[in-house]
């Protein structure tokens, strides 16, 4: 019983206009070994672009023009970007790629791929504000490691996306600068805090984007915007250059319009970094090596895969439309051969207060660096403490101030044991319960949020109501596990329905399994079109090549 709110319009995910699908393609040796896979290029925009560029079907300049035009047309409606790169610079980078290809020189595996970066990730050549007045105009002197790796592989950074200030929020309403709108319904939120990054990919303004996930900030907007969001294991991707919110929980995550694209992007940015003491030295497998053609899949390609549906996530308080979409997704997994059962995680509901205690406390410490002295906006004052107090009072928004104050309280002498220490103990319990569940199951599934996108302004004045929306996602951060969210259905709302995402949770460092399962699920899911009408309404070039 798949949720059939939206009548199926297209059968293929990517409407290819009069272009034959290429079945195989040569990959020039490149910096990163992208496996020579034998699946249709249209399962991945990134590989499709690479194919077209290397076979000279399309130039990087033409591709860039197409995306920039669409960005220009959609941006006034959705406001994803805080900073858009100078088009001339972007086109010059595209031209350089075309020139290299003409000269038969190597180009990186992400050559010509337009990527948007969440504005709490440092980029040296453009402003990075973290969505806050306190860093308005700030230009970091370095690139984040994740950004550097993308650039080294040929990606073109198209701009910095909007977010809730310093990652604190679930809607982008806490941004100092603007509110991003959901491309599926402009009166609704895109989710947060990586709302700009999710909406940007959803509206096909860029191919892929980077976000950050501390309590669900990649997964929830992926669900709200109908795109794929991948949160890696804590330690998989370097946090160097990510403005710290809660250091024990933050990760950089990936958005794409397909599971394959997020897998390729994650592979590009993963790996040990000596500049991040919490980054893991583990090998990074090529996530794309598991991909296969939809048509060449056996009839039950996931035979025997043990899937646990987390009972507490389909209980009271969850939208009935979301429940039905998840049940449909579960049925689809069973058709693919999975063995489905319900799993109960005892401590599930404790995760939310534990998360907010830990996150507020760590943020109160991390944000003390914004004092108006070494960078950012400085208030005028004739006394040092007043300088700190005024700069921070003027620079921070309300949500950030409240969380700093709550964190300061939770860490105060006399309260540390009651709050912070207990939250850390709850973290241990949650880690163990997830580990036990993942010993018995290969993956766990749940919704990514208790509802689809809600209206702008609906939860703005009720912090607890907004925090409640994070219930599906925070436990995964506490346990440090990887999770993938991919669109699986729709609920009523907006012009054609609002997308709902399925969350797939894996064991630590098992992103490969998530990407494999997600890819097969996506390729065999029929009857849905996850391109928002806004993209086709603005006209112009088809979103795909």
């Amino acid at each position, binding site marked *: 019983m798949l949720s059939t709110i939206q009548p199926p319009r297209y059968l293929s995910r990517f409407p290819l206009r009069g272009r034959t699908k290429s079945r195989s393609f040569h990959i020039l040796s490149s910096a990163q070994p992208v496996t020579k896979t034998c699946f249709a290029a249209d399962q991945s925009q990134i590989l499709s672009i690479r194919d077209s560029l290397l076979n000279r079907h399309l130039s990087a300049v033409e591709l860039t023009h197409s995306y920039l035009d669409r960005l220009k047309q959609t941006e006034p409606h959705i406001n994803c970007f805080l900073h858009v790169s100078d088009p001339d610079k972007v086109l010059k980078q595209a031209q350089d790629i075309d020139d290299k290809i003409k000269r038969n020189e190597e180009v990186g595996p992400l050559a010509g791929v337009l990527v948007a970066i969440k504005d709490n990730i440092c980029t040296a050549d453009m402003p990075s504000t973290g969505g806050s007045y306190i860093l308005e105009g700030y*230009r*970091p*002197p*370095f690139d984040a490691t994740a950004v550097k790796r993308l650039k080294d592989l040929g990606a073109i950074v198209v701009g910095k996306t909007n977010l809730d200030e310093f990652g604190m929020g679930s809607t982008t309403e806490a941004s100092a600068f603007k509110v991003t709108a959901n491309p599926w319904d402009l009166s609704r939120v895109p989710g947060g805090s990586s709302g700009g990054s999710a909406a940007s990919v959803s509206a096909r303004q860029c191919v892929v984007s980077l976000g950050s996930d501390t309590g669900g900030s990649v997964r929830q907007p992926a669900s709200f915007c109908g795109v794929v969001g991948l949160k890696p*294991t*804590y*330690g998989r991707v370097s946090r160097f250059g990510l403005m710290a919110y809660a250091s*024990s929980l933050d990760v950089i995550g990936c958005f794409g319009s397909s599971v394959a694209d997020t897998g390729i992007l994650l592979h590009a940015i993963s790996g040990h970094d000596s500049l991040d003491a*919490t980054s*893991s030295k583990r090998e990074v497998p090529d996530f794309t090596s598991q991909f296969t053609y939809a048509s060449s899949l056996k009839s039950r390609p996931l035979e025997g895969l043990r899937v646990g549906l987390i009972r507490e996530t389909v209980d009271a*308080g969850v939208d009935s439309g979301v429940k039905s979409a998840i049940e449909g997704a579960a049925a689809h997994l069973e058709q693919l051969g999975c063995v489905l059962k*319900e*799993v*109960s995680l*005892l401590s599930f*509901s*404790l995760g*939310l*207060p534990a998360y*907010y*205690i830990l996150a507020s406390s760590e943020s*109160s410490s991390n944000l*003390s660096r914004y*004092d108006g*002295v070494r960078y*950012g*906006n*400085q208030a005028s004052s004739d*006394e*040092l403490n*007043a*300088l700190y*107090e005024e700069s*921070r009072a003027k620079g921070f928004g*309300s949500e950030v*101030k409240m969380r*700093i*104050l709550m964190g*300061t*309280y*939770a860490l105060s002498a006399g*309260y540390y044991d*009651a*709050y912070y*220490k*207990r939250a850390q*103990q*709850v973290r241990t*319990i949650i*880690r163990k319960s997830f580990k036990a*569940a993942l010993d*018995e199951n290969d993956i766990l599934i749940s919704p990514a949020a*208790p509802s689809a996108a809600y209206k702008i302004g609906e939860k703005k004045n009720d912090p*607890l109501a907004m*925090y409640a929306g994070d*219930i599906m996602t925070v436990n995964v951060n*506490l346990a440090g*596990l990887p999770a993938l969210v991919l669109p699986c259905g729709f609920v009523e709302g907006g012009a054609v329905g609002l997308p709902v995402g399925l969350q797939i949770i894996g064991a*630590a*460092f098992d992103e490969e399994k998530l990407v494999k399962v997600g890819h097969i699920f996506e390729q065999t899911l029929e009857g849905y079109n996850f391109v928002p009408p806004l993209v086709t309404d603005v006209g112009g070039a088809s979103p795909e090549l």
Partner: protein
Amino acid sequence: MGSRALLMLTNFNFKATVSSFGSASNPFFLIKNNLRIRNFSTKTRSSLQPPDLPGLAETARISLAPNEVEEFAPKIGQVIDWFGQLQAVDLDNVEPAIRADTEGDNLREDVPQTFENKEALIASVPSYEEPYIKVPKVLNKE
């Protein structure tokens, strides 16, 4: 939309009666029958002193306007009360976890490295008088 229902407190002190799901080798607890919901209220009262906002603001070096104190106090109070539900949980003998512990020991050699882009670092400083970062005087408050 029932979002408050999600904040319900569960009784964590249930007896470990194994109501096993599936085969005997499955150590999984299906707690459906053992779960006692303590209350649906989000108004769990913390037994500690409520937050003193002006004091906290001073510690956090943020000056708050009176209207902000008025606006924040009830919201912060509500959230801190909600935090209080953790005090009801039995956490004896549970080790606190600093982080998820997925990443292992990755310290690098303690060897200084030159940072190349010093000009950009200096350019970011709001108030710079070569070679000092300039700040106003410090007054010792009593």
